[in-house]
C-alpha cells in the first residue's frame, strides 16, 4: 500500500493548521493564553496596586476586599503581583524560545549541511547538553548580576543544543529529498539552497519545539527563583513570588498556590497548544513527547 505514505505530507502547514476545528482542550488553552497575555499587557489597568508598593503594616494579610488574594511578607498585594508576574514569565519564555532559535537555527543549518563542521560543532553541543541545564543556569545567573536578561540567557544557553540537534536532524533528512538534489542540479548555490529549501522544512518543528521551550523556560525561571538565584524581587515573576511565599507556606500557603496555579495553567495551555500545533504541523509526531 503505497498510500500509507502520508497524503498530508506534501500539504502546506498553513492549510493543515486550519483544516479541522480544534479540539476543546486546544480551544481552552487558547482562551487561557489570551487571558494571560491580556493580563500581561494590561497589567497596570487590572492590578489594584503597584506591584512593588510596600505596606509594612499590612504584611501577610489574608484575602480581603482590598487585597483580593492577600498580601505578601512585604505587605504587597499578591493579586497585583501575580498580574504583573505574567509580564516577566511571558518575557522569559519568549526571550528563551526566540533566542535559542535565533542562535541554534543557523548553527543547526550549518551542522546539517557542512559535514566537515558537523563533528566538532556537535561534540560542542553534546558537551553543552551534558551539563545539567539548571547547574549551568545557576552558575550563569551568579556570573552576571541577577536580572531579566541574565536569567533569559542562562536558561537559553542549555536550550540551544536542542534547537541545533532538531534543525540538524531535519536538514540531514531533507538533504535526502531529491528536490534538494534537483536544486543542486539547477545550479543553486549552498546559501540560497539552505535558505530556500532546507530552512523552510525546519520551521514547523521549530514552532512546536519553541512552544515547549517557552513553557519549560517559565518553569526553569521559577525553579531558579525557588533556589534563590532568579530575577530580583523588585520585578515580580511567578517564580519569585512563589519563592518568597514559600517561607510563609505554613502561615499562608496561598502565597505559593496562587502563583503556582496561574503558572501551571499557563504552562499547561502552552503545552496543549504545542501538542495541537505538532499534531497539525507534523501528523507523524502525534503523541510524541517534546
Amino acid at each position, binding site marked *: 500500500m*503505497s498510500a500509507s505514505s502520508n497524503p498530508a505530507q506534501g500539504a502546506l502547514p498553513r492549510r493543515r493548521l486550519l483544516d479541522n476545528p480544534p479540539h476543546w482542550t486546544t480551544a481552552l488553552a487558547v482562551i487561557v493564553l489570551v487571558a494571560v497575555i491580556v493580563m500581561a499587557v494590561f497589567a497596570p489597568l487590572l492590578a489594584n496596586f503597584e506591584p512593588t508598593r510596600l505596606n509594612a503594616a499590612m504584611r501577610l494579610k489574608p484575602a480581603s476586599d482590598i487585597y483580593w488574594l492577600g498580601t505578601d511578607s512585604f505587605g504587597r498585594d499578591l493579586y497585583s503581583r501575580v498580574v504583573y508576574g505574567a509580564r516577566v514569565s511571558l518575557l522569559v519564555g519568549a526571550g528563551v524560545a526566540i533566542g535559542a532559535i535565533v542562535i541554534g537555527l543557523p548553527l543547526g543549518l550549518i551542522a546539517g549541511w557542512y559535514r566537515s563542521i558537523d563533528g566538532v560543532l556537535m561534540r560542542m553541543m553534546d558537551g553543552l547538553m551534558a551539563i545539567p541545564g539548571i547547574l549551568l543556569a545557576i552558575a550563569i545567573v551568579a556570573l552576571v548580576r541577577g536580572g531579566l536578561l541574565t536569567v533569559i540567557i542562562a536558561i537559553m544557553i542549555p536550550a540551544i543544543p536542542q534547537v541545533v540537534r532538531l534543525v540538524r536532524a531535519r536538514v540531514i533528512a531533507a538533504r535526502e529529498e*531529491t*528536490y534538494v*538534489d534537483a*536544486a543542486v*542540479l*539547477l*545550479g*543553486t548555490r*549552498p546559501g540560497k539552497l539552505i535558505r530556500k529549501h532546507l530552512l523552510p522544512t525546519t520551521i514547523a518543528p521549530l514552532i512546536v519545539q519553541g512552544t515547549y521551550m517557552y513553557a519549560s523556560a517559565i518553569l526553569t525561571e521559577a525553579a531558579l527563583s525557588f533556589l534563590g538565584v532568579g530575577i530580583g524581587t523588585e520585578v515580580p515573576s511567578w517564580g519569585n513570588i512563589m519563592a518568597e511565599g514559600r517561607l510563609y507556606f505554613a502561615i499562608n500557603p496561598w502565597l505559593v498556590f496562587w502563583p503556582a496555579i496561574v503558572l501551571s495553567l499557563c504552562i499547561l495551555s502552552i503545552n496543549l497548544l504545542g501538542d495541537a500545533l505538532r499534531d497539525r504541523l507534523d501528523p507523524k509526531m502525534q503523541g510524541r513527547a517534546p
Partner: protein
Amino acid sequence: MATAATQPVLSVRDLKVATRGRQPSDILKGISFDIHPGETLCLVGESGSGKSVTSLVAMDLLPRDELRATAGTVRLNGEDIITATPARTKALRGAEMAMIFQEPMTALNPVLTIGLQMDEVYWAHTKMRPKERREAAIAAFEAVHLPDPQRIYDSYPHQLSGGQRQRVMIAMALALKPKLLIADEPTTALDVTTQKQILSLIRELQEEQNTAVLFITHDMGVVVDIADRVCVMRRGEIVETGPVEQVLSQPREDYTRDLLQSVPSLTPRAPRASSGGETVLEINNLEKTFSFGSLLGKLMGRESRSVRAVKDVSFGLARGRTLGIVGESGSGKSTVARCLMRLEHPTGGEIRVNGQDIANLQGQQALAPARRRVQMVFQDPNRSLNPRLRIGESLIEGPLNLGENRETALKRAGELMEVVGLPSTSLERFPHQFSGGQRQRIAIARALMMEPEVIVADEAVSALDVSVQAQVLALLAEIQERRNLAVLFITHDLRVAAQICDEVMVMQRGSVVEMGPAAEVLGQPRHEYTRALISAAPGRDWDFAAGRRIAGATT
C-alpha cells in the same frame, strides 16, 4: 483446474468497507468473489483500488480505528469472518488462513530471531513440544529451499537477503497448511530474478497442499505467470472477473483493455535510424568507490571498508538518442547517474560534457555550464518537488540562478507547462495539488527550463501506475523528438527499456556486462546475466498488445 462444484474456501459477498471519522468514505463498494481449493485468484488493480483492504478484511486485520466493514460477508469455509469473535479469528489466523506481505524487509520483527518467529506459529496453534517445533521449523525452511536451515533458524532478519526473508514468510504462512493463503504484492519489492523464484515457490507449495491463493498484484506480467482467475479492481469495485486467459485476451471492459494496452512490450521496438547528432556526453572509465571508515578507525589501524559501486564504465551519448541502463538493485546504475550529474564525486575516469571533463570540477560556479546542458528527472515525483514552493518557483529556480529575469522565466515556464500537457495556471499551485503522473510532468518541465541537451531519467516512471507510465513515456519521447535531446534512461524494467531505448547497457554489480543496440541486447542477448534477466521478466510469454500468448515461448 478449479471447479465450481467444490465449495469455495473463501467467499466474499457484497463487501463494503468505509473509513471511520466525521466524513466516512467508502473504500470498498460492495465486492464479491470466490476462491476454491488449489485455485489462484489474482486481484489486480492500480494503487488505491482497494485490493489490499480486501485482504485485510479477510484476515480480520483491518486497523480498527481507521476502517470498518459496513456490509457484506466474508466466509472462510462457510464461517463469516466479519461476525466472528476476535478469539475465533485469532485461532483461524495462521492455521486456516495465512498471509504474506509486500515488504519482506519490514514484515519480520527485526529484534527477534527467525527461529522464534517461526516457532510462535506452532506455539500458538499446536500442542507440539519445543523440540518438535524446532524440527518442524527446520523442515519448513527446507521446504521453501532455504540454504542452511539451522543457521537461518538462529539468524535475525537483517542477516538475510530479501528473497530469503520472503521464503521465511512463506514458510511461516504455510507451516500449518492453511486452506487459504493471501499474498499481498509478495514480489513487488524484489528483483525480477528473485521474483521469479518466489512465484514458482508459491506455485509449488500450492500444488502440494492444494491451497487456495488470493494473490494481489499490480503487475500484469505476474498475473500471466500465476493466476487461474483474475479480478480487475478499480476504485473499490471489481470491474471485471474471469479466467486469466479470457480476461487478458478478450477484456470486456474498456478499463481492462486500457490497462493491458499500457503494458509495454518486451519485444524491442524497431531501431531508430541514427540521427548522426554529435556526441554530447561521454563517459570514460568511470569509477566510484564508497569508503566507510572513520578517522578513528584509521588511527587504530583498521582497514576502512570500501565498496566499488561503479567499475570502469564507459559510454557515449549523442543527441536524439536514448541509452538505457538496466540492471537489478545494487548494480550501480543509479550511481553512474549521480556521478555524471556530479551529485557524487567520482573516484576515477572522465565525464565529458560537450568535450569538457567535469569529473574533477568543484563548486557550482565551475559546474554551471555542465549543469545547464545535463538535467535529470528523478524516480519519486512526491519527493523531487519542494512541497513548500509553488510550481512556478520550482520551475524558474534554475533560470534565475543563470541570471535570467523573472518575468521571461515565468513566461517560458507557462509555455512549458502546456508542452507537458498541464495548464499554465498550474504555476500558481503547489505540488500536493497534483497527481504523481502530473508531478512527473512538472519535473520534466523543470529540467527543460534549463534547455538541456541531455536528460538523465533515473527510474523516472517506476513509481507510476502502468497507465500513467505509458503517458509519461510518450511525453518524453515526444519532447526528445522535438528538441533533439539525448536521453539516458535508467530502469530496472526491461519492458520499458525495450520500448524507448536505442542502445541498452546492462549492469551487474558495478560493471557493464553487455552493451549494444536495444534490439540486439534484448532480442539476442549474448551474456548469461542478460539472458537470466530477460527470462525472469514476468509475463514474457504474453503479448499484451495483441492479447495472445507468444508462440514458441515456454511457460
